[in-house]
C-alpha cells in the first residue's frame, strides 16, 4: 500500500452527492441546435474549418487547433452549420464569444472513423497526433489540451502517473458514475496514457466516499492484472485539486510557477482517460461527456451523457426542472463553479456538473461583516497562504503586497470564503486582485512595446534624416570631384608647354618693373640736372640702358599678348 500523506487545511462541506447517484447514466436528448464555442479549453480558440450552410456529419472536425496550445472541435451530431459568430458561453463574465451553431438533422450520421487496432504498434508521434485530432482536453475542470500533457516525456522524465478520481467537490458525481459503469474504458485509457509516458508508477487517487466506484475499479484492475495502484484518500475538500492530490499521494509539492511534470508527475482525470480510450480504440472524437444534473429544483437528479454543445435549457428540461423553484444555476460544483444567468448557454468539454439550486439550498450570501481576523481562513487554506492578509491587501488595492504574500499561489478553491464567519466574499477579492494585476501587467507590456516601437520609429526617422543628409553631401562631393577631375584632365593636356598665362603675367610684371625703374631713374636724372649736380653723365647712361630694357620688356609682353590673342 502506498502511504497517504496530507495537505494543509481543507474543509468538509456537506457532500450532497447521493441525490444524483440513484439512477444509472442516462442519455440526454438530441437538441435541435448545438452551440459549440471555439474556446472550450485553455489556450487559443480553435479556427473554424466550415462555413455557414455546410453539411456536417457526426464526428467531423469543424474547427482545428490554432497554434500549439489549442484543441480541435468536432460536430457532435450530423446537421447543417447555421451560424458562426457570437453566442453566450459558459464563462464567469456572462459575455459572448465566437461559436459554431449546428442545426441537427436527427440522422446522427457518423463520418468515417479511424479506430486504431493496436496502438502499441503505432509510432508515438502518430498516436499523439490521433489524440490531438480527437480534440481531447482535460475533462476535470481547467480543460488543458491533453496531447500536450502526454507529449511531455520528450523533455521531462515522468516517474509517476496520477489519475485523478478524487472528485472532491460536493454535488458532482460524473466521475463516480463513470467509474461505476465503465471502469474498463478508464483502465484502457490509463494504459494508453502509460504507454505514451512510460511512468514507473501509476496511481489512481480516489476519495473514500465512493465505495462503489472503488470496488468497480479494484475489481477491474485485479481482473486485468494491471500495474495500477488504487489509493483511497480521506474525503476532504479540495483533495481533488491537482497540487493537493499530488501532495496527498507523493508528499511532493509542485514548486510555485512550475508544472507537475517538472517534478516528474503527470496528472490526468478519469474522464479524460475514458475519452482517450474512445478516441484511440473506437476512433470517436470528444463529442460527448458525462454531466451531473442536480440541485433541488430538478425532478430527475442524475448523470447524463450529453453531446457537447447541448444548451443547458434542453438538459434542464430533460431533468424535469421546476423553474419557479430554481433560484441559482451553477456550472461546476458549489465551491468553484460559475453562476450562470442565461440557460441558453451550451454544455462544453469541461462542464462536469449543472446545479439548479433552490433558494433554501444556495441562499444569497448575507452581507459581509467586518473581518475580525479570526484566522479560520488560514486554518483551511490548502495552499498555506494567509487569506485574511491577502484580503486586506486586495481591498486596499495594495497589489504588490498581495503578490508578496503569494496571491498567485491561490487556487481559488473557496475554502476560506466557506468558513469565513463574516461572510466576506474572499475569493472574489482575490480574483479581482489577480485580474487587476494581470491587466496592469498586460498594460505595462503593451506600454513597453509601444515605447519600443516609438523609439524604433524615432531612430528610423533620425536615420532617414541622416541618410538624406549623407546623400546630399555625397552628391555635392561627387559634383566637386567631377569638376576636379575635369580640371585635372585639362591640366594634363597643357602640361608640356609652359603656361602661357603665367608667362604672360611674368612678362607683364617684368615690363611694368622695367617701366617703374626707368621712371625712377629719369626722375633722379631730372633732379640732378635741375640741381646741377655732378655725375649726370652716368645717370644719363643708366637711363638710356633702362629705356632699352623697358622697351625690350614692353616689346616682349606686347608680343606675348599678341600671340595669345
Amino acid at each position, binding site marked *: 500500500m502506498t502511504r497517504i500523506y496530507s495537505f494543509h487545511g481543507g474543509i468538509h462541506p456537506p457532500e450532497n452527492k447521493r441525490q444524483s447517484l440513484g439512477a444509472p447514466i442516462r442519455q440526454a436528448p438530441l437538441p435541435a441546435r448545438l452551440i459549440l464555442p471555439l474556446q472550450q479549453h485553455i489556450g487559443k480558440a480553435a479556427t473554424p474549418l466550415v462555413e455557414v450552410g455546410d453539411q456536417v456529419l457526426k464526428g467531423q472536425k469543424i474547427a482545428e487547433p490554432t497554434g500549439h496550445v489549442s484543441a480541435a472541435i468536432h460536430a457532435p451530431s450530423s446537421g447543417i452549420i447555421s451560424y458562426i459568430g457570437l453566442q453566450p458561453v459558459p464563462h464567469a463574465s456572462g459575455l459572448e464569444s465566437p461559436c459554431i451553431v449546428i442545426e441537427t438533422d436527427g440522422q446522427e450520421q457518423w463520418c468515417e472513423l479511424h479506430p486504431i487496432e493496436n496502438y502499441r504498434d503505432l509510432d508515438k508521434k502518430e498516436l499523439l497526433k490521433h489524440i490531438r485530432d480527437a480534440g481531447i482536453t482535460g475533462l476535470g475542470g481547467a480543460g488543458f489540451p491533453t496531447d500536450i500533457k502526454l507529449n511531455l516525456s520528450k523533455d521531462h522524465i515522468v516517474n509517476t502517473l496520477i489519475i485523478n478520481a478524487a472528485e472532491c467537490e460536493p454535488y458532482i458525481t460524473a466521475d463516480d458514475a463513470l467509474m461505476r459503469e465503465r471502469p474498463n474504458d478508464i483502465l484502457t485509457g490509463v494504459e494508453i496514457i502509460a504507454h505514451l509516458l512510460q511512468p514507473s508508477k501509476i496511481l489512481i487517487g480516489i476519495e473514500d466516499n465512493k465505495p462503489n466506484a472503488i470496488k468497480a475499479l479494484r475489481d477491474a484492475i485485479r481482473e486485468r492484472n494491471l500495474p495500477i495502484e488504487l489509493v483511497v484518500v480521506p474525503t476532504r475538500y479540495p483533495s481533488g485539486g491537482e497540487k493537493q492530490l499530488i501532495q496527498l499521494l507523493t508528499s511532493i509539492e509542485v514548486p510555485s510557477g512550475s508544472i507537475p511534470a517538472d517534478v516528474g508527475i503527470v496528472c490526468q482525470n478519469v474522464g479524460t482517460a475514458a475519452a482517450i480510450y474512445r478516441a484511440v480504440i473506437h476512433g470517436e472524437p470528444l463529442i460527448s461527456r458525462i454531466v451531473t444534473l442536480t440541485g433541488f429544483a430538478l425532478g430527475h437528479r442524475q448523470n447524463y451523457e450529453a453531446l457537447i454543445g447541448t444548451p443547458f435549457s434542453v438538459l434542464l428540461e430533460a431533468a424535469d426542472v421546476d423553474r419557479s423553484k430554481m433560484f441559482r444555476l451553477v456550472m461546476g460544483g458549489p465551491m468553484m463553479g460559475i453562476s450562470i444567468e442565461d440557460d441558453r448557454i451550451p454544455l462544453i468539454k469541461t462542464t462536469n456538473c449543472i446545479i439548479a439550486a433552490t433558494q433554501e439550498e444556495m441562499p444569497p450570501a448575507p*452581507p459581509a461583516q467586518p473581518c475580525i481576523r479570526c484566522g479560520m481562513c488560514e486554518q483551511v487554506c490548502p495552499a498555506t497562504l494567509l487569506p485574511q492578509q491577502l484580503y486586506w491587501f486586495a481591498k486596499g488595492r495594495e497589489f504588490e503586497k498581495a503578490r508578496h504574500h503569494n496571491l498567485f499561489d491561490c487556487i481559488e478553491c473557496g475554502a476560506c470564503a466557506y468558513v469565513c464567519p463574516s461572510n466576506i466574499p474572499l475569493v472574489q477579492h482575490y480574483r479581482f486582485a489577480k*485580474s487587476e494585476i494581470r491587466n496592469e501587467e498586460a*498594460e505595462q507590456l503593451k506600454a513597453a512595446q509601444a515605447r519600443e516601437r516609438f523609439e524604433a520609429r524615432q531612430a528610423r526617422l533620425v536615420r532617414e534624416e541622416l541618410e538624406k543628409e549623407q546623400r546630399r553631401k555625397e552628391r555635392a562631393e561627387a559634383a566637386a570631384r567631377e569638376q576636379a577631375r575635369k580640371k585635372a584632365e585639362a591640366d594634363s593636356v597643357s602640361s608640356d608647354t609652359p603656361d602661357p598665362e603665367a608667362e604672360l603675367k611674368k612678362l607683364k610684371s617684368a615690363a611694368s618693373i622695367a617701366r617703374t625703374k626707368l621712371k625712377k631713374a629719369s626722375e633722379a636724372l631730372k633732379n640732378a640736372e635741375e640741381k646741377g649736380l655732378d655725375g649726370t653723365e652716368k645717370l644719363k647712361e643708366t637711363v638710356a640702358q633702362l629705356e632699352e630694357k623697358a622697351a625690350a620688356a614692353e616689346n616682349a609682353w606686347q608680343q606675348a599678348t599678341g600671340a595669345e590673342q
Partner: protein
Amino acid sequence: MTIILTAILILLSLAVVFGVILGFAAVRFKVEGDPIVDQIDGLLPQTQCGQCGYPGCRPYAEAISNGDAINKCPPGGQSTIEALADLLDREVVPLDAEHGEEKPKMVAYIREDECIGCTKCIQACPVDAILGAAKQMHTVIVSECTGCDLCVEPCPVDCIDMIPVPVTPSNWKWPAPVSDPNLIWTDRGRGHLLQEGSE
C-alpha cells in the same frame, strides 16, 4: 574650562567618527536607482499621443522631471497621476481638462473600402502600427495600436474610426466585491450607501 574643552573635544571626535561611518555607508551601500526620467517614463502609458503638448511620452517625462505638471496625460488618467504623485512626492491633482479627458481604451479602425492609400496616417502613427503602401489599402495592427488618435486628423477621406476596445471573456476583469460595510470613521456620510440591503 577643561570640562567645556573636553565636552567639545568629545563631541567633535564623535562627529568625526559618525561622519566617517556615514560617509563610508553612503559609498559602500549606495543604492543604484533608475534615473528619475526613466521611472517617470515607465509610469506613462506610452500612447505617444502628444496630448500633453510634448512630442511623445519620453519628452513629457523629461519635462515632468524638470518641474512640469503631472496632470497632462489623459490616456493615463487619474491612476497615472496618482502613481506620478506617489513617485515624485507631489500633490495628487485632477486631470487638466485642457489636455483632454480620460476616455476608455480605444483602437483605430480603418474602413478599408474608403481608404485611398494616401499613406498620411502611416506617417502620423507614432508607433508604426499602420500597414500599407502608396495607392494600397492601409490597415491597423490592432495589437500595436495605442489608441492615440493621431491618425484620424490627417486622413483626407475620414475613413478612420476610433472604437473602444471590446470586452471579451479573455480580457474581462473580475469586479471588486461590493456591499462591504467595513469603513472607517472618516467615511461618515457614505454610510447610506451601505445601509441598503444590510438592515
